[in-house]
């Protein structure tokens, strides 16, 4: 009787097949999410000068918050700064494609919206952009998730997600948290 090297080799080949099958399942699941459900990592390369953010066309104080752009898109613009979001509450409708755009004049911040896949870094010099569609209403917390200084834990905003009939932008297309009832 000899040590059955062929049996050992066969078991390794079978195990390689199992691992190959697992990799195929995981890659298929990721491709399904990306192609069929449009779940992708937020990727946007867009530059903005952090020193003159408040003077830029887009991130001036009057232009922050939720707004319906001329092309019909719902866009919310926020500044993440030590140690608050401006504005600290935005209102957005359910079941409609929305775009969140962030910029920072100081250090690296990060945002996530609880209960959703919205999650991105906010890096000085870049505009962070996330497209999403909210399906549930409610006040969702949006904390800074990248340590940004001593006041980091105080840096938290609210995303107020309301049914479409309660989303009432004004004549200029702007909507604020106080408007939604």
């Amino acid at each position: 009787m000899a040590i059955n090297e062929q049996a050992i080799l066969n078991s390794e080949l079978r195990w390689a097949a199992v691992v190959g099958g697992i990799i195929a399942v995981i890659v298929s699941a990721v491709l399904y999410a990306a192609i069929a459900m449009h779940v992708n990592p937020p990727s946007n390369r867009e530059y903005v000068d952090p020193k003159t953010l408040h003077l830029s066309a887009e991130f001036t104080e009057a232009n922050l918050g939720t707004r319906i752009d001329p092309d019909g898109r719902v866009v919310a613009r926020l500044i993440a700064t030590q140690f608050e979001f401006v504005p600290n509450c935005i209102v957005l409708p359910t079941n409609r494609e929305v775009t969140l755009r962030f910029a920072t004049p100081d250090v690296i911040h990060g945002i996530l919206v609880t209960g959703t896949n919205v999650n991105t870094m906010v890096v000085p010099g870049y505009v962070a952009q996330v497209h999403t569609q909210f399906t549930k209403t409610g006040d969702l917390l949006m904390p800074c998730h990248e340590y940004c200084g001593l006041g980091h834990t105080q840096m938290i905003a609210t995303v107020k997600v309301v049914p479409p009939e309660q989303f009432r932008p004004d004549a200029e297309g702007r909507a604020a948290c106080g408007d939604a009832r």
Partner: protein
Amino acid sequence: MSDPAYPVTRHDYAGDAEELERLEAALEGGPKGAVAVSLIAVALLMIGWLGMYFLVFLPRGTVG
């Protein structure tokens, strides 16, 4: 280069014949125990991964 402590064939094996018989008997059908432990561990890992993916990640909606 063969190391007597880790024999490649029975000719390299420096131990006694009885021990060699036990070793051969244990390995006759391949490493069944190792395969069983690996299958259980990987199955638990995959159940966890698929559960997080389909029950937590996908219901949280589209993003891009």
